[in-house]
């Protein structure tokens, strides 16, 4: 036996828990330790998408139409993939412009238009109120059913109850209290409610767990798993058709339109906008939420079909609505705890939606409908009031109560006639009307205010005509032949088959016509209208929000205002302490002490307008700032010039020019490299051929004159040995260069004593020096530190430098001096020769690969042209420098410097 008292106790306990969580969340937020700042809570809060419609209605729909309930959840999955493009942009724009509602977003984009703000608010309110009613209906119905436990009685029509004995009425009051407490606690420029979000995330967990519990109970408790349940259903002819889509005329089109509709809904429902955009703590959270949220949807839908089929089979022949199976199945099996859990789950789904939706709607009603009107009423003199923040909060609270009472009224008089799903889809169709204006607004610069207004009006009109008027006809407010015959007998205008369109269901039909009218007019009129300056400005700021990170700086509105006026205005709307704090922060951030200057510059005016926009919406903020602002002498034409696309074009063409120049330079370099490579090839082949030729000719001599004397023989073979060595050196060098170049070189780091390196290099080049009789001296400063490096490579550097010096010294008169000393945090080694020196223009290029200094007198250079470039690579590896100093005619000094401790790479 389940007492009414128990049910009420548990319900109130649950609501109490929500209040506690929200309170805790707010406390933590005040203390600066957010509990909602992670992607999981963010994704769970997005799951406010799943309402009582999901919890009860999906099963009802599945019992009627099989998998036809799924598009509503597939759409959001597809939208999530696009979410990274669309939602991220919306979030960024909203953060930059402090946008706090969807009406504000649309209004702000189209030139801070008060008209648009009001239109969006009205459409959203009219579209959403039935949806709120639906939640109240779900709570009320489920309460009446569980109260009858263990008997299952379908509730009667609630219009027969007096209001004050109706549960739904009290539920509405409690929800209003919650929304007022946690949705309008204080006025904040960012309009974020951490406690509320925490509570919503908790509700998402509860409803998922409850639905899972019922699903598992039905599938594995009553039946023997999926296969058994579906097998039995398939054997019943009545249920067989639920397992496929049916494939009748228009089935797939309806399916596609439903997917599209839910894609738009998940982006533009006011409550989704609230949790996904306004309450977003960090853009990065979107990354995980984009797959966690669809995963949640998938999870909550797995058991829908089993519960639906099970319910239809168990309640065959009884009057039990499919919308209530989630609750009635545990009841009929006498599982009272599970039934109670299911009841709480349904309640969590419904309350979560109602709370967020009313808060979102009340913000819109206050900022975008009521305030703009109040501010314009001269007799109220609101612009001169000293503190308006209390007034703002009052309007919002009143808005919440109003929305909930409207929802209750709708439920009481009309809602009874419809199933959960059909009401929900009507709401979806209403909010889908925002899609062209918003999507066009963030991706299409030319989208204009008049286009948006016309599109919204047309879409809204079609929605009213094809969905709302027929529902009024159903409950008797309009004559029934309005639907069956068309208005005044015009068959072409029948609301369910406009212009004779057949084959779609009611929703698909309405979606098609409304979106056609809406998007068509939006695009068409935008293409032929001339936007105003402020529209141009806002369009550019929205479309290019990622391009202009500095948009705060590039102030479009060059207005200035007296500082005291600005300050008192902020104080009035934000409250004294918040306003002062914000102003001080601005001063600190920009290093301006504007206390001293009597006039606020345009940057500060802009900042103030954005602050205000957070509190009262962009359209109202514009009006307020406009009232104290002195516009700088800047003509409209100038604004247009600044903003017009020409600017963009100029920027692009500059970038293009730069890129072209870079390409040209790269091309020159490539050509140069190509030439050098050719030269290198001919040098190398020449260098290879010379020793080869001499080896071959000497070998031929030896071969053809066997009776050559032993002395000559000795001499010849020595030449062969020497020439082969030269060949080997050459080839080693080429290979080495190749290896360094391709990064395949093995380096062996150790402590290296530079003195040893020098003496080893000198030893290796002794023969070369003796051949040309060149004098070499080396001087080492005292106390040279060891360096960290690759010993063999450093020897190679010195060998290369010495052989290079030898190459350019005159035989017998040559002198080479090697010096090493401490310099900076490392060692410097100089190798000086008294050769012809190097021309200033060659000082840098000498280290490039294949580069050889040609001189008139010496003809073709010797060697491969790789020695110095290998040196440079080695020194580069040691994080050192190598360079040459020279005066032509007075020799050259090659210097390199390496740090004692090689900094780690990277």
């Amino acid at each position: 036996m389940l007492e009414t008292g128990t049910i009420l106790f548990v319900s109130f306990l649950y609501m109490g828990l929500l209040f506690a969580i929200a309170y805790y969340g707010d406390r933590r937020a005040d203390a600066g330790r957010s509990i909602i700042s992670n992607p999981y809570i963010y994704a769970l809060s997005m799951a406010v998408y799943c309402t009582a419609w999901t919890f009860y209605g999906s099963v009802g729909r599945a019992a009627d139409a099989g998998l036809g309930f799924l598009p509503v959840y597939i759409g959001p999955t597809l939208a999530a993939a696009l979410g990274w493009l669309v939602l991220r942009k919306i979030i960024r724009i909203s953060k930059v412009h402090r946008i706090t509602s969807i009406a504000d977003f649309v209004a702000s984009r189209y030139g801070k238009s008060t008209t648009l703000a009001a239109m969006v608010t009205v459409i959203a309110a009219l579209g959403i109120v039935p949806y709120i009613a639906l939640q109240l209906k779900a709570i009320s119905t489920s309460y009446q059913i569980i109260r009858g436990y263990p008997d299952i009685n379908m509730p009667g029509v609630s219009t027969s109850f007096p209001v004050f004995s109706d549960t739904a009425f009290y539920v509405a009051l409690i929800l209003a209290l919650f929304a007022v407490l946690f949705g309008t606690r204080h006025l904040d420029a960012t309009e974020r409610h951490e406690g509320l979000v925490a509570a919503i995330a908790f509700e998402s967990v509860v409803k998922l767990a409850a639905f899972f519990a019922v699903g598992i109970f039905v599938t594995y408790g009553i039946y023997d798993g999926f296969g058994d349940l579906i097998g039995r259903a398939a054997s019943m002819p009545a249920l067989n058709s639920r397992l496929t889509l049916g494939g009748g005329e228009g089935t797939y089109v309806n399916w596609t339109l439903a997917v599209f509709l839910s894609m738009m809904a998940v982006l533009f429902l006011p409550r989704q906008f609230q949790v996904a955009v306004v309450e977003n703590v960090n853009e990065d959270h979107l990354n995980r939420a984009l797959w966690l949220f669809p995963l949640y949807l998938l999870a909550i839908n797995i058991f829908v079909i089993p519960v639906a089929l099970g319910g239809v089979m168990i309640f065959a022949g009884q009057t039990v609505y499919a919308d209530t199976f989630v609750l009635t199945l545990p009841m009929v099996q006498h599982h009272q705890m599970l039934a109670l859990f299911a009841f709480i789950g349904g309640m969590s789904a419904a309350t979560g939606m109602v709370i967020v939706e009313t808060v979102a709607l009340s913000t819109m009603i206050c900022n975008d409908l009521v305030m703009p009107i109040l501010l314009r009423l001269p007799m109220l003199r609101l612009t001169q009031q000293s503190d308006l923040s209390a007034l703002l909060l009052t309007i919002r609270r009143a808005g919440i109560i109003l929305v909930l009472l409207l929802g209750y009224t709708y439920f009481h008089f009309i809602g009874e006639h419809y199933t959960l799903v059909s009401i929900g889809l009507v709401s979806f169709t209403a909010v889908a009307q925002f899609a062209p204006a918003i999507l066009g607004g963030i991706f299409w610069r030319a989208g204009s205010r008049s286009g948006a207004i016309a599109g919204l009006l047309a879409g809204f009109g079609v929605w009213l005509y094809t969905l709302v008027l027929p529902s009024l006809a159903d409950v008797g407010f309009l004559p029934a032949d309005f639907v069956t015959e068309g208005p005044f007998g015009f068959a072409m205008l029948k609301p369910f088959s406009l212009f004779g369109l057949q084959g779609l269901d009611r929703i698909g039909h309405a979606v098609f016509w409304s979106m056609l009218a809406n998007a068509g007019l939006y695009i068409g009129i935008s293409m032929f209208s001339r936007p105003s300056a402020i529209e141009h400005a806002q369009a550019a700021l929205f479309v290019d929000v990622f391009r202009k990170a500095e948009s705060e700086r590039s102030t479009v509105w060059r207005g200035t205002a007296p500082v005291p006026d600005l300050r008192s205005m902020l104080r009035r709307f934000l409250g004294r302490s918040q306003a002062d704090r914000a102003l001080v922060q601005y001063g600190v951030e920009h290093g301006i002490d504007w206390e001293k200057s009597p006039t606020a510059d345009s940057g500060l005016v802009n900042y103030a307008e954005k602050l205000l926009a957070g509190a009262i919406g962009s359209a109202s903020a514009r009006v307020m700032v406009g009232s104290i602002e002195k516009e700088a002498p800047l003509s409209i034409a100038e604004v247009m010039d600044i903003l017009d696309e020409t600017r963009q074009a100029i920027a692009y063409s500059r970038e293009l020019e730069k890129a072209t120049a870079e390409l040209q330079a790269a091309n020159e370099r490539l050509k140069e490299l190509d030439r050098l490579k050719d030269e290198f090839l001919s040098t190398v082949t020449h260098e290879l051929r010379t020793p080869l030729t001499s080896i071959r000719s000497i070998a031929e001599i030896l071969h053809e004159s066997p009776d050559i004397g032993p002395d000559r023989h000795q001499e010849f073979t020595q030449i062969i040995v020497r020439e082969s060595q030269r060949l080997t050196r050459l080839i080693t060098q080429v290979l080495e260069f190749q290896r360094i170049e391709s990064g395949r070189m093995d380096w062996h780091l150790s402590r290296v004593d530079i003195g040893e390196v020098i003496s080893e290099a000198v030893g290796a080049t002794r023969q070369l020096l003796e051949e040309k009789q060149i004098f070499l001296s080396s001087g080492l400063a005292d106390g040279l530190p060891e360096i960290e490096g690759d010993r063999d490579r450093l020897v190679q550097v010195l060998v290369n430098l010495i052989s290079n010096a030898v190459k350019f010294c005159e035989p017998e008169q040559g002198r080479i001096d090697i010096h090493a000393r401490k310099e900076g945090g490392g060692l410097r080694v100089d190798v000086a020769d008294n050769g012809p020196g190097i021309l200033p223009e060659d000082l840098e290029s000498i280290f490039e690969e294949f580069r050889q200094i040609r001189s008139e007198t010496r003809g073709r250079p010797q060697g491969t042209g790789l020695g110095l470039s290998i040196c440079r690579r080695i020194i580069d590896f040691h994080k050192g420098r190598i360079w040459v100093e020279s005066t032509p005619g007075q020799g050259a000094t090659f210097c390199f410097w390496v740090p004692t401790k090689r900094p780690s790479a990277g």
Partner: protein
Amino acid sequence: MTSLAVKARRLIGIFLLGVVLFNYPVLSLFDREIFLSGIPILYLYLFGVWALLILLTAMVTGSRRSGLREQGMDERSETSTKD
């Protein structure tokens, strides 16, 4: 091509894949009374594709965390600053 642009392109790809798989005519191929271990293939197909899309989205959004910090550099290709 920045990593952000690559990511956007991949997500658009996933979206298009979903559009194709969740709509006529591909959908109609599975809209039949065929059962795999007692479960209709339409049911398996829809939930399978759904799970696949979630998996792909998770892979694309989960990888390369470093790319996400490029605040202000978004959608702007980096110009070379090499000398």
